């Protein structure tokens, strides 16, 4: 049965390898240690935030034990099981490092005093010469709410710069934008244990099994009850393998399928008219909009057989309770917001939003992807999901922070706009924490140019990331279980992360570093925090009265009731697990339909670049892979990227399985191994995105962004696959370009300040 051979031999079979792939000797050396205590906490990886217990002995984290938490019931994916091995990892950064010789010099060990002195003197100098906005902050969502909140406050109050944004921009900002527009609130409708109540689960662009393995637990419980499963994905993922209907869509054409499904539902009389009349607006416009989307037209646009679209529409439309789950597959597009809104239209037309087990829920990817986008580290946002351009909301936060409202900066550049400002010299220096831009941003040749133009570039990280390698100063931060705080998982459940160890060497907790920097900038009076709890209490006050109201969520309440769902406006409020049961959060309490027309992706295949390239995750890695590529068990299973290509396409190009091939797009080329498999569309290729340097798929991806939320189009660009001995063409060739920065002024790159089109203004009225 097993194809493993029967002899244990080092380097022969990773299943049985011990230590050699691990690089985690310290953990294994401690294998005889007996745990003194278990620290209950949650996983560092992905938005599910599974409960786990960390085994601690002699102040060291030595292992993991299951924790029976309400949403994972002791289950863990492989990332969760080995997450603890980051703590004493030999690659940890243990002291600050400064490039004393300037650009081109070496990173050398320095003291914290020297590091902080260097930053503050350089920043003061830059800000006095070029203005406050010349220094920017680029943060991330894989850290606690306390740190995310502090990053926003640090930029606006500590540095007084308008330029702060975060990597959530690259993650699910299109879903957040769509939910705000449709429901007036950006939150999942139900907790995960409600998933099995759905009679039909439709997964749109989400490889649930690899990216959110623990959600699969609830999907399968539904399947045991008889739920039907529909999957929309260009690849036959493990999720799609057992689905009732798999819709193998051409990347970038999801709207055609979703609109055609809605049309079938309308024509079959499966629309919930009473719900639409009572709880929604704008239905008639949508009805008119989808009418031209016949099955034939959808088939032609999307490449999905009409019969499959019809079958999916009938299953979805006839199910009493149906749940749509979606993730980056439909969100990473230059029309990502539209894709999500088309899904929302289906859920509303069937009257599902607000039903137990029904509706539409986004699967947020990052550890704290939900909480990190609520408390003001986004370019346009203040804590509590307030908008920085709304005078009344500015006033409220200025009062909490004790600063004059006129001192608060206005909206700054989005994460995807920042590289351009850096390259142009508008941003002179940037502090990057919890992000690895060299792997995560599209078209990384431009990103590299931008980051090298910064002087100084400062990076806080706990491993040497591809971005930190370019830094002028690297500060050693803490991993998740060396600090305490809260995160908000993809359900909207606020949970508590507990500390199990101290940061190693001279490494420090990120919030301590930010507070010290603020003091150095002479703004220490606004950052008097002595503990993460004090930051939490200020966050609660700051969010009070906002859409994402955390005021009533105390750490004690989180422990007592296994997490608290926001909004929770008062101390005696139990939290809101199902926020849309009775109302939506627009002033009239109704949800809004949005008519969505089909727009092609910014770039499509041409004779020069005949494939659609799409990128995504593998189960063994998390985001830019800076953490998981160092964990032996995970890296052993996916040490390098590969390109998935269908056997028909491979045969045409004379490419064999496992052969090294060249993949080229209008922006660059890379060489990697071909995986010839029939589980992908013949006109599509797939490369996982977790790798750096020559393995980064973002050498190829298109930096086109969604006009509303500026999410990049990672999920489709034109590309070609070649044998490596084939000479490169003299001219680069051209893709079919549907949009360029010229004919679509809202596309990247654009001037700062041009970020307030009518759509955004509407988005602000939440």
């Amino acid at each position, binding site marked *: *049965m*097993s*194809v*493993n051979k*029967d*002899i*244990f*031999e*080092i380097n022969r079979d990773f*299943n*049985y390898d*011990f*230590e050699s792939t*691990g690089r985690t000797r310290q953990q*294994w050396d401690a*294998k005889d240690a007996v745990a003194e205590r278990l620290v209950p906490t949650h996983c560092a990886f992905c938005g599910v935030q599974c409960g786990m217990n960390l085994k601690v002995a002699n102040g060291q984290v030595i*292992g*993991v034990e*299951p924790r029976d938490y309400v949403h994972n019931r*002791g*289950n*863990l*994916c*492989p990332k*969760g*099981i*080995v997450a603890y091995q980051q703590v004493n990892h030999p690659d940890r950064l243990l002291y600050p490092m400064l490039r004393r010789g300037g650009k081109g010099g070496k990173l050398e060990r320095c003291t914290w005093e020297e590091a902080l002195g260097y930053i503050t003197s350089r920043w003061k100098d830059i800000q006095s010469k070029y203005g406050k906005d010349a220094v920017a902050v680029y943060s991330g969502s894989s850290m606690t709410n306390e740190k995310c909140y502090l990053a926003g406050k640090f930029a606006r109050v500590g540095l007084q710069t308008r330029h702060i944004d975060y990597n959530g921009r690259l993650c699910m900002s299109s879903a957040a934008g769509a939910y705000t527009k449709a429901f007036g609130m950006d939150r999942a409708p139900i907790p995960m244990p409600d998933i099995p109540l759905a009679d039909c689960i439709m997964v749109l662009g989400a490889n649930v*099994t*690899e990216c959110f*393995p*623990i959600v*699969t637990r609830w999907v*399968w419980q539904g*399947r*045991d009850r008889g739920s039907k499963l529909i999957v929309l994905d260009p690849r*036959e*993922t*493990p*999720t799609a*393998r*057992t689905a009732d209907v*798999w819709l*193998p869509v051409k990347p970038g054409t999801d709207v055609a399928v979703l609109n055609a499904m809605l049309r079938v539902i309308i024509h079959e009389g499966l629309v919930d008219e009473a719900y639409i009349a009572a709880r929604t607006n704008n239905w008639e416009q949508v009805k008119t909009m989808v009418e031209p989307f016949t099955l034939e037209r959808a*088939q032609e646009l999307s*490449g*999905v*057989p009409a*019969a499959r679209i019809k079958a999916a529409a009938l299953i979805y439309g006839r199910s009493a309770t149906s749940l749509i789950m979606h993730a980056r597959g439909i969100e990473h597009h230059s029309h990502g917001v539209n894709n999500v809104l088309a899904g929302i239209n289906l859920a509303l037309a069937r009257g599902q939003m607000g039903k137990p087990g029904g509706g539409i829920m986004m699967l947020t990817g990052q550890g704290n992807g939900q909480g990190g986008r609520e408390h003001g580290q986004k370019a346009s946002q203040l804590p509590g999901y307030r908008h920085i351009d709304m005078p009344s909301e500015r006033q409220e936060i200025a009062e909490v922070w004790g600063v004059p409202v006129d001192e608060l900066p206005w909206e700054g550049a989005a994460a995807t706009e920042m590289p351009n400002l850096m390259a142009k010299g508008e941003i002179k220096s940037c502090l990057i924490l919890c992000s690895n831009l060299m792997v995560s941003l599209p078209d990384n040749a431009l990103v590299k140019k931008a980051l090298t133009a910064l002087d100084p570039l400062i990076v806080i990280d706990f491993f040497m990331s591809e971005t930190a390698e370019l830094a002028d100063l690297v500060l050693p931060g803490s991993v998740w279980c060396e600090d305490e705080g809260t995160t908000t998982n993809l359900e909207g459940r606020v949970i508590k992360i507990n500390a199990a160890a101290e940061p190693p060497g001279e490494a420090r907790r990120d919030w301590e570093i930010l507070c010290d920097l603020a003091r150095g900038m002479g703004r220490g009076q606004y950052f008097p925090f002595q503990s993460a709890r004090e930051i939490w209490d200020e966050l609660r006050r700051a969010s009070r009265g906002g859409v994402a109201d955390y005021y009533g969520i105390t750490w004690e309440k989180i422990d007592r009731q296994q997490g608290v769902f926001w909004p929770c406006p008062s101390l005696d409020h139990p939290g809101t697990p199902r926020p849309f049961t009775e109302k939506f959060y627009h002033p009239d309490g109704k949800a809004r339909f949005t008519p969505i027309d089909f727009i092609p992706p910014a770039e499509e295949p041409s004779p020069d670049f005949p494939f659609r390239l799409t990128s995504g995750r593998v*189960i*063994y890695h998390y985001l830019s892979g800076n953490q998981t590529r160092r964990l032996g*068990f995970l890296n052993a*299973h996916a040490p390098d990227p590969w390109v998935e290509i269908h*056997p028909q396409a491979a045969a045409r190009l004379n490419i064999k*399985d496992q052969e090294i091939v060249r993949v080229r797009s209008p922006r660059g080329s890379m060489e990697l191994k071909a995986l*010839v*498999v*029939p*589980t992908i*569309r*013949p006109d599509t290729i797939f490369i996982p995105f977790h790798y750096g340097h020559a393995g980064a798929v973002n050498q190829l991806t298109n930096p086109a962004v969604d006009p509303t939320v500026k999410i990049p189009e990672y999920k489709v660009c034109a590309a070609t696959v070649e044998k490596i001995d084939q000479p490169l063409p003299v001219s680069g060739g051209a893709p079919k370009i549907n949009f360029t920065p010229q004919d679509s002024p809202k596309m990247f790159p654009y001037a700062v300040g041009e970020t307030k089109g009518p759509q955004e203004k509407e988005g602000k009225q939440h």
Partner: protein
Amino acid sequence: MAIKTLFVDPSRCIGCRSCEAACRECDSHKGESMVMVDFIDRGKSVATQPTVCMHCNDPVAPCAQVCPVMAILITPEGVVQMAEPSRCIGCRNCVYACPFGVPKFDAEARLMKKCNLCYDRTVQGLKPWCAQACPTGALWYGDYEEFVAQRNGHPVNRTLFGTQQVNTRVYHVLPPEEPMLDIVALLREAEAKEAGTAWQDQEAWVL
């Protein structure tokens, strides 16, 4: 008393290797997994399946039967243990005897190693680490009645290798029409399917 055991459902396996990662966390063999996850045939499908010790009970533990030094012990509950290090002479008889290819020989330690159903955990009423971690229930721990009450699928604990039948403590979950896991019949069926032309008549899945 109901017998708690593992149920292996390949249709649910997503190949995430949580079970392997979890098995490596066991204090008695830290860093080594006794569970194996394999792609069935990645050139055709993303299907995967975990292999654990099936804890054969009729004939009782072929691996133990062929052990010349009685190093493989069977508990009163019928759980077949890994080789006792003080007895194992490293002859690999068990490796060749096992019909499922489960025991692995650690050449350096000169010791046979295999799954012992997390005996340390299960005697205390806990689940084995693999089934505890498994996100999909492809590896599931409990008794037969619980399984039937909670889940779809047809648990089978008889495997047929040609004319040899083995009854195991651990169940495979099969489609309802399969009375037992008949390996040879399944292989023949697969060969016939591949040689035939039925698959060519399938409707196109992309247009």
